[in-house]
């Protein structure tokens, strides 16, 4: 390349760069927060259990939220990063979850019990949020890979943050080993896809696939390999092996974080990959057009099989669990299965149903894990047996847990019902009746183990009522703040549905 060529390249790039920076404010705010959290931690080093970098992160998230509200839309950084309504919706889910998780952490006895240095904890959460932001908008295979790695790297360390507890370091190690394998498989798939199409941008891959003959089997294998990497993140069967152990061993806050935020980001990239790379886009397409799949590779069937496996295995194994965190781990596998039903539909109705489901799932799952954490703070146990009589010892926790469990089952009038309703409607509209039937049957199974949790709280151990658990006012306020969306979104869901419908569209080029 001679200097003249470089000059042309540079000047054509500068315009794009200036435009991109405007689109990149929320992520920039996150990186600045990330660095500030490290700096603040250096100055508060001598005071263990100092919450200073936690507050800095919360303020940083707040600033990010302001930028996110006013974010313009468009393609940025030479087609590697899309800022569109779709990614902004997922960024909101990630941001709210991260905010709530940091607030949760302030109440965790497990984390603050041992005079632990907590600075890195917040830093890593902010870094992970950055990774998930990138993942929601990435349209370039290298960026997708790096975003997944950023997210995983932080979650490996966070899962083992209480490293003197044996099961936490074991969880972390298992997570790293499975994670390394799955990311190896994924990057192999990426290399096959690149070798096939000669492009790393999803739009470039799409254009090449549309215009050229490619080998079906190679396309299928590379796609499956990439989906395996993403499936690991959303803990879909058969890539779920790490889930129960990691969820059980990690600190409760991190378990909640993994089960909501990294799952949401994983679904964002799965949907974007299927839509932007593997679907034919015509000029006159509207939001209601069904996606027509490239080269007749049956992605619908592959995703549907993953979905059925995840639901069934998740729900049936959850029935036997005696540890509440493990139970919620299998429940989260099952929920990944329900959400995958929406992906299998492969149209925008399915996408908006997934968004509704994830937004609601965020509130119910965070609520359930918060109750688990508060109970563990008081009774030092996560065993289902020890939950006996909690309903009498603390009616607050009992009632809250009951609401979250009913919501996770998907019964009216809670929000969980609305989430399931939209996903099942999308599946039925697309004509996959068998999938809907399996989904409904699975929901019935799930009722059994969700009920088991609050049955233990209220129908057993009434004699323990004389050992009341006192909750502080802030804990009660947080509980109410988590209960309200679980009930309110079950009754007034119009706003959320409209927002999700308006956000289902993706920028392609």
């Amino acid at each position: 390349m001679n200097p003249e060529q470089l000059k042309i390249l540079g000047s054509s790039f500068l315009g794009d760069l200036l435009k991109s920076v405007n689109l990149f404010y929320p992520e920039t705010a996150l990186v600045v927060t990330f660095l500030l959290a490290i700096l603040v931690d250096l100055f508060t080093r001598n005071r263990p259990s100092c919450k200073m970098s936690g507050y800095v992160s919360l303020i940083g998230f707040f600033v990010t939220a302001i930028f996110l509200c006013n974010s313009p839309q468009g393609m940025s950084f030479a087609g590697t990063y899309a800022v569109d309504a779709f990614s902004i919706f997922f960024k909101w889910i990630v941001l709210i979850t991260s905010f709530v998780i940091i607030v949760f952490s302030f109440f965790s006895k497990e984390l603050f019990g041992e005079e632990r240095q907590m600075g890195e904890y917040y830093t890593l959460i902010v870094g992970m949020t950055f990774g998930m932001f990138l993942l929601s908008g990435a349209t370039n295979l290298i960026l997708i890979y790096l975003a997944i790695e950023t997210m995983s790297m932080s979650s490996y360390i966070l899962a083992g943050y209480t490293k003197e507890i044996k099961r936490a370091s074991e969880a972390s190690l298992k997570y790293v080993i499975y994670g390394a394998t799955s990311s190896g498989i994924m990057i192999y798939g990426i290399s096959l896809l690149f070798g096939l199409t000669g492009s790393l941008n999803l739009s470039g891959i799409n254009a090449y696939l549309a215009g050229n003959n490619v080998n079906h089997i190679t396309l299928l294998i590379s796609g499956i390999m990439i989906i395996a990497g993403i499936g690991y993140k959303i803990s879909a069967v058969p890539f779920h092996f790490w889930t129960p152990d990691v969820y059980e061993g990690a600190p409760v806050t991190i378990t909640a974080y993994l089960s909501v935020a990294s799952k949401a980001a994983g679904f964002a990239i799965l949907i974007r990959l299927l839509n932007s790379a593997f679907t034919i886009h015509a000029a006159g397409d509207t939001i209601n057009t069904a996606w027509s799949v490239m080269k007749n590779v049956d992605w619908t069937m592959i995703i549907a099989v993953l979905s059925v496996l995840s639901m069934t295995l998740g729900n049936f194994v959850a029935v036997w669990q005696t540890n509440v965190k493990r139970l919620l781990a299998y429940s989260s596998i099952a929920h990944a299965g329900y959400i995958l039903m929406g992906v299998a539909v492969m149209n925008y109705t399915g996408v908006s149903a997934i968004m509704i489901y994830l937004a609601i799932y965020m509130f119910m799952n965070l609520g359930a894990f918060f109750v688990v954490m508060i109970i563990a703070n008081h009774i030092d146990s996560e065993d289902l047996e020890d939950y006996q009589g909690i309903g009498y010892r603390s009616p607050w926790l009992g009632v809250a847990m009951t609401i979250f469990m009913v919501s996770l089952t998907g019964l009216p009038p809670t929000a969980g019902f609305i989430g399931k309703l939209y996903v099942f409607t999308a599946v039925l509209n697309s004509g996959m009746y068998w999938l809907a039937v399996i989904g409904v049957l699975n929901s019935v199974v799930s009722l059994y183990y969700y009920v088991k949790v609050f049955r233990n709280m209220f129908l057993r151990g009434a004699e323990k009522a004389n050992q009341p658990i006192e909750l502080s006012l802030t804990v009660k306020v947080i509980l109410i703040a988590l209960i309200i969306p679980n009930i309110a979104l079950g009754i007034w869901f119009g706003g959320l549905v409209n927002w999700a419908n308006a956000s289902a569209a993706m920028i392609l080029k």
Partner: protein
Amino acid sequence: MNLVDIVFYFFAVIIVASAAVVVLSKNIMYSAFSLLFTFFGVAGIYVLLNADFIAVTQLMIYIGGILVLIIFGVMLTTKITGLEMKTGITGKAQYAIGGLSTLVLGGTLIYVFNSTSWFKSPSVPTTSTVEAIGASLLTNYLLPFEAASVLLLLAMIGAALIARRK
């Protein structure tokens, strides 16, 4: 068979053979040292593909950095050189299942590689790839490049955290 093919197969044999030693050797020191030849062979293949920058990076990072670290790690761990690695229960069933899945996977991949019409970029004579890589990193791939820096910082913080006593 022309000269390029011969050189390719030479490196390929080195890679496969030494990788097999890495996996199969019971002595962890032998594994670490034969990893050297695997990395070296891969670097050779890069040179063959005209990817000079990546070849040098491979030598500097994998052989100069990672491998040395591994060997140091092995040597600083007590009693490791003579240690028999525990391989758990490897009965006939495990060998059969492992071998079968390897054969199926290998067969599929070989079939795929031979039957696919891969994307071929127009061949341009290149003198040095460093400049082109540098220009790409700061233009088309700017965001991945910057994202990698955050990733590395996170990894560093994590490593320090794990190494810290409390």
